[in-house]
């Protein structure tokens, strides 16, 4: 940690105050990526309830997950995969030498597009959020 703080002093670019576009892209891609892989492992655990408890075990697990709290979690996952998909697509285009000189503009395009997709998709999660109880 002490080392980390010294690095920030030595490299002002590492201080969020001085972040430029590329650092925000890097940070958002990383946070969304780590969140998605943590979800994936939990998702495998939740779905294999069928291995541990058969049809009844699976149905009980799925019913238990029908709460407002988990809908919020699903919505956050939707946020993460939307940005990670669109930004990852941008990175692959840049790998193929497409649009590299305009990467800053492309990042903000991806950011705006993500916001539009999330806003449009939120309607479906809102339906679910309203339909489910806080707890069983």
């Amino acid at each position, binding site marked *: 940690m002490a080392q980390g703080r010294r690095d920030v002093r030595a490299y002002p670019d590492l201080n969020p105050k001085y972040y430029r576009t590329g650092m925000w892209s890097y940070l958002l891609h990383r946070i969304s990526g780590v969140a998605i892989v943590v979800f994936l492992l939990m998702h495998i655990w939740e779905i*294999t309830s*069928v*291995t541990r408890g058969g*049809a009844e075990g*699976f*149905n009980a697990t*799925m019913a238990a997950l029908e709460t407002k709290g988990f809908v919020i979690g699903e919505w956050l996952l939707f946020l993460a995969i939307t940005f990670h998909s669109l930004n990852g697509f941008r990175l692959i285009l840049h*790998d193929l030498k497409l649009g590299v000189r305009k990467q800053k503009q492309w990042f903000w395009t991806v950011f705006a597009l993500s916001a539009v997709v999330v806003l449009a*998709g939120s309607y479906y999660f809102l339906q679910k959020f309203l339909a489910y109880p806080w707890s069983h």
Partner: protein
Amino acid sequence: MKASLWLWIWQRITAVLLLLLVWIHFGIMHFVDPTVEITFAASTLRLQSVLYALVDSLLLITGLFHGLNGLRNVILDYWPHAGRAASWVLGIIGVVAAAYGSTALFAFLTAK
């Protein structure tokens, strides 16, 4: 070609596959009928169609590879010399998770 370059290339191949697979899966689960109850019967019906069984099986493998290899990249940013150890630990987690996850797929595919 060096192993790390293969990992770089496979990260991109799985990325392109996941763009398709994740959104098919997420779309069916969340946008077709958002408030429908997820049950064993309905999941069995869905997974016993060849196309959807293929989507979910591929999703399990490509998702685990892409996610855990991404985690390896994160680890290497903080511990540049941990490549070998990270490959082993994450590799084992990946194989175990893929094997255990496929027991669920198998349960649905063989259900009456």
